[in-house]
C-alpha cells in the first residue's frame, strides 16, 4: 500500500480558505435560508477538518488523500454546451418516471417540465425554490443535517447552493417514481456540492430514484447531502444507483426522519465508482415506524466503497431491518459500519441487521463493524456479519448437475445479490438492477448503458 503523507491541517485549510475567498460568490443569488447557515457550518468543519483514518467513523476510508488533490469548485451554474436531455437518456424498459437532471450538483436549466404531477406537489431546484417558496423550505432545511457532527456534512452546508427539492403535501400519492439523475461532466477536475431536500407530507406516498453518473473520466469530488422527512403514515421509497467512473470520489450523506406509522424503504446499489462513501442516518421519531435499509456493492480494480449506517430508535414500537451485501474483486476495499442505537424507553423495538460479504481475491479487503448500542431492555436486536466465499457445497451441487464452474459461480453470485434486489418495490427497477448486476458480474458492464456516451 503506497500512501503519500498528506498534511492534514493543510488539506482542511484549503477548504476553509476556499470558503473565505468565495464568500460573496456563495451568497450570490442564494436564498438567505441557505446563506445564514454558512458561517456556523464552516466553523464546525474547521473544528474537525477532513476526516482521516484516525477519525473513528472514517477508520476505513481515509479521505485526506482524496481531498488533497486539486479541484475546481463549482460555485455557480455553468452552461452546458449540449442538450443533456438528448445526450443522456436512461433507457430502463417499462420504467416510466418523472425525470430530473442535475449537472455537477446544479439543477439543469433545460430540464423538461414535469407534467402530470399531482396538485400541490413541488419539485425542482432547491436554489430556485428556496428563493421563491421559502415557506416550504425553512422548517426543514438543515433540521437533520445540522445535528450531525460529521465535518463533511458541515462542509456541504457551508458550500451548498443547489440541488433537488421535492415537496409532497399531505394525502397525496405519486404513483410514478421520480428519477433524479446526478451527472458529473467536465473537462477538468471538479469539486461539486449538492444539497437535496425531500419532504413527504402525512399519509402521502412517493418514490425517488437517484442515479449517480459520470459523463467524463476526469477526477471528481462530490459531497452530497440529502435530507428526507417522512410524515405520519407516509410510505416512501428512496433508491440510489451509483455507477460512476473510477476517478470519481463521492461522499453521500442521507438523513431520514420518520414520523409515526411511516414506512421507509431505502436502498443503495453501487455498481461502479472510484471511492464511494455513503453515510445514512435514519431517525425513528414516531412510534410504529418501519424502515428497511438495503445496500449492495460490486467492486473491482482499486475501488473503495464504504457504507456507514446509523439507525436511531428514539421511540417505542419501531422496526428496522438492514441488509448489506458486498462482492469484492481484484484490489478493491469494502467497508461497512452499521449502528443500531436504541434510546432509553424505546421499548418493544425490533432492530435487525445483516452484512454478508464475498471476497474473490486475496488482495481484496473487507472491513465490517456492526454495532449495537442499546439502552432499553424490552427489545429484540441482532446483527450478523460474515466474510467468506461462495458455498463450495452449493457449487458442487450445481456442477453435479452439469453446469460448468463459471456459470455455477455466476448463478450463485446472482442469487447472493438477488436477496437484496428482491426487496425493491418498483418492479421495472428491480428487473433492471437484476440485469445490471448480472452484467456487472460477467464483467461486461463498465458503466450504466447510455452513460458511456458522452
Amino acid at each position, binding site marked *: 500500500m503506497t500512501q503519500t503523507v498528506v498534511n492534514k491541517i493543510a488539506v482542511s485549510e484549503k477548504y476553509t480558505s476556499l470558503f473565505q475567498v468565495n464568500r460573496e460568490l456563495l451568497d450570490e443569488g442564494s436564498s438567505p435560508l441557505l446563506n445564514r447557515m454558512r458561517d456556523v457550518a464552516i466553523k464546525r468543519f474547521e473544528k474537525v477538518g477532513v476526516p482521516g483514518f484516525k477519525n473513528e467513523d472514517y477508520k476505513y476510508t481515509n479521505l485526506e488523500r482524496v481531498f488533497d488533490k486539486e479541484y475546481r469548485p463549482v460555485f455557480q451554474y455553468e452552461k452546458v454546451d449540449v442538450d443533456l436531455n438528448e445526450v443522456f437518456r436512461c433507457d430502463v424498459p417499462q420504467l416510466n418516471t418523472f425525470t430530473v437532471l442535475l449537472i455537477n450538483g446544479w439543477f439543469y436549466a433545460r430540464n423538461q417540465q414535469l407534467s402530470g404531477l399531482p396538485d400541490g406537489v413541488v419539485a425542482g431546484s432547491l436554489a430556485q425554490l428556496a428563493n421563491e417558496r421559502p415557506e416550504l423550505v425553512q422548517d426543514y432545511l438543515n433540521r437533520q443535517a445540522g445535528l450531525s457532527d460529521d465535518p463533511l456534512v458541515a462542509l456541504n452546508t457551508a458550500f451548498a447552493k443547489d440541488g433537488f427539492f421535492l415537496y409532497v403535501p399531505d394525502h397525496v400519492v405519486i404513483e410514478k417514481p421520480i428519477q433524479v439523475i446526478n451527472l458529473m461532466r467536465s473537462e477538468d477536475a471538479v469539486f461539486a456540492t449538492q444539497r437535496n431536500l425531500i419532504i413527504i407530507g402525512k399519509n402521502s406516498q412517493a418514490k425517488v430514484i437517484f442515479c449517480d453518473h459520470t459523463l467524463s473520466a476526469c477526477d471528481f469530488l462530490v459531497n452530497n447531502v440529502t435530507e428526507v422527512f417522512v410524515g405520519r403514515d407516509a410510505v416512501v421509497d428512496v433508491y440510489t444507483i451509483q455507477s460512476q467512473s473510477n476517478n470519481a470520489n463521492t461522499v453521500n450523506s442521507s438523513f431520514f426522519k420518520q414520523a409515526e406509522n411511516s414506512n421507509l424503504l431505502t436502498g443503495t446499489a453501487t455498481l461502479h465508482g472510484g471511492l464511494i462513501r455513503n453515510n445514512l442516518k435514519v431517525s425513528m421519531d414516531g412510534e410504529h415506524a418501519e424502515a428497511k435499509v438495503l445496500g449492495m456493492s460490486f467492486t473491482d480494480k482499486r475501488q473503495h466503497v464504504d457504507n456507514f449506517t446509523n439507525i436511531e430508535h428514539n421511540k417505542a414500537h419501531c422496526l428496522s431491518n438492514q441488509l448489506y451485501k458486498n462482492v469484492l474483486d481484484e484490489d478493491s476495499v469494502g467497508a461497512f459500519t452499521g449502528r443500531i442505537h436504541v434510546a432509553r424507553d424505546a421499548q418493544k423495538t425490533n432492530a435487525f441487521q445483516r452484512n454478508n460479504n464475498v471476497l474473490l481475491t486475496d488482495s*481484496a479487503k473487507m472491513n465490517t463493524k456492526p454495532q449495537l448500542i442499546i439502552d432499553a431492555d424490552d427489545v429484540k436486536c441482532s446483527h450478523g456479519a460474515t466474510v467468506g466465499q461462495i458455498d463450495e457445497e452449493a457449487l458442487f451441487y450445481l456442477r453435479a448437475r452439469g453446469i460448468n464452474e463459471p456459470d455455477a459461480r455466476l448463478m450463485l453470485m446472482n442469487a447472493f445479490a438477488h436477496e437484496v434486489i428482491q426487496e425493491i418495490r418498483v418492479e421495472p427497477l428491480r428487473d433492471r438492477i437484476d440485469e445490471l448486476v448480472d452484467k456487472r458480474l460477467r464483467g461486461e458492464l463498465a458503466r450504466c448503458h447510455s452513460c458511456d456516451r458522452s
Partner: protein
Amino acid sequence: MEEQDKILEEVTSGEYKFGFVSDFEMDTIPKGLNEDVIRIISEKKGEPDFMLQFRLDAFRKWQKMKMPDWAYLKMAPIDFQEIIYYAAPKTKPQYESLDEVDPELLETFNKLGIPLEEQKMLAGVAVDAVIDSVSVKTTFKETLAEKGIIFCSFSEAVKEHPDLVQKYLGMSVPVTDNFFAALNSAVFSDGSFCYIPKGVRCPMELSTYFRINAAGTGQFERTLIIADDDSYVSYLEGCTAPMRDENQLHAAVVEIIALERAEVKYSTVQNWYPGDKNGKGGVYNFVTKRGVCRGESSKISWTQVETGSAITWKYPSCILLGDNSVGEFNSVAVTNNHQQADTGTKMIHIGKNTKSTIVSKGISAGKSDNAYRGLVKVMPGATNARNFSQCDSLLLGSTCGAHTFPYIEVGNKTAVVEHEATTSKIGEDQIFYCNQRGISTEDAIGMIVNGYAKEVLNKLPMEFAVEAQKLLQISLEGSVG
C-alpha cells in the same frame, strides 16, 4: 409485572462481600510519579540494570502518550500524580511454612476463601498470592520444580532467571502498546512468572490471587507465562479489593507466549470492589492481556468471569502467528448498579489455518453499561483462517445498557468469518413457563441467568466454576438462588 420488578430490584441490589480491610503494616513510597519514583521502585526490588532501563524507557514513552478516550465509558479524569505507585506489606515474607506467616495475612486469605494450606493438597492448586502488588506466598514450589516448572513471583524471576525475563518480557505486549501498558511497564511492582519447559504437562492448576489493600494505591502487576514446546498449563487468576470511597487504579499486564504445540489456558474470575450502589468508589480495572501463539499448532484460551470493578476495560487477545494455531475467548461480564464494562477480545490471524472462537455473554442490571468490543483481523497471508464470534447481551431492567462493537477486517479470500450478536431480556414467557411448573419468579431468574452463562462457566476449571457461579449469584441474584 410489578412483582417481577420488585424481585429484579432485590436481585440487583446485592452487596459486595469481600470489602474488608486487612490491617498490616505497609511499606509505601510517597504518591506521584517521576523518574526518581521509578528508580526507587527498581532499587527497592534490587533489580538488575536491564529492568531499570526497561522501566525508564517505558516511562519516557508513557509521558508522551495520552489517555485514550474511545471506550464507551463515562469516567472522571485520573490524576496520575495522586496515586501511590508502590505499597508492600512491610514484613516481607520469606516463609518456609505457613506457621510463620503473618496471622493478619492468613486471616485475609481465609476470608477470601483461598485454600492456602493443606486444603491445597485436595484442591491441587499452586497459588501465588499478590497483595498490593507484592507477591507474598507461592505454594507448591518444590513439587513444580521437580518437573522443571518455574512458578514464582516476578521479582524473584528477575533475580533468578534474568535471561528468560529479558528474552520474553515485552514480547507480546510491547512497552508502547497502549497508555496503561506503558504505565505498567514503568512502575509494575510484582506479579507472577511462569515457565513450563519443553514437553511438560503442568500437573496442577497454577493460580494467582490479587488483592488491593492499602488506600490510595494503584496496583500494577505483571504476569508473564511462557509455555515451551509441547507443554501445557492451566492458569487461574482471582482478584478482590476492600471497599473504599475513592476509585483505585488497577493496570496490570499479562503476557502469554506459547511456543510450538504448546497450550495455555488462562482463566480469570475478577471480583474487584465495584463501588457502592450509588457508583461511589470501586476499582478501575484497566488491564492489557495478550497471548502470542508463536509456535505451530499452539493454543491459547482465555476464559473470564467479570463481576467486579467500577470500570472494566480490557481485551484479552490472541495473536495467531504460528500455522494451525488456535485462539479462544470465553467471557461472562456482569454489571450492576453503576458499573461499566468495555471488554472483549482481539484475534489477529497471521498464520495459515488459524482458528479462533469468541463467545461473549454480557449481563447488565441496575444503571450499568456493558459493552463488547472486539476485533477479528485476518491478514492477507492467513489462508483458511476461520473465526466464529457470538456475543449475547441480557438486559435486566430498563435503565441499563448493552452495547456491541465488533470490528471485522478480512484480507484473505479463503477466510471464513462469522459474527452474530443478539440482545434480549428475560422473556415473560420463560418466566411464565417456570412459574407454571411451580418455580418461583426469583428462582426462575436465577436459573435463566445461570443457564445463559453456562456455556462459558463450563470452560472454567472445576474449582473456579463453583466460585464463579457463586459470584454470579452475589453480583446479581442477591436473594435469588
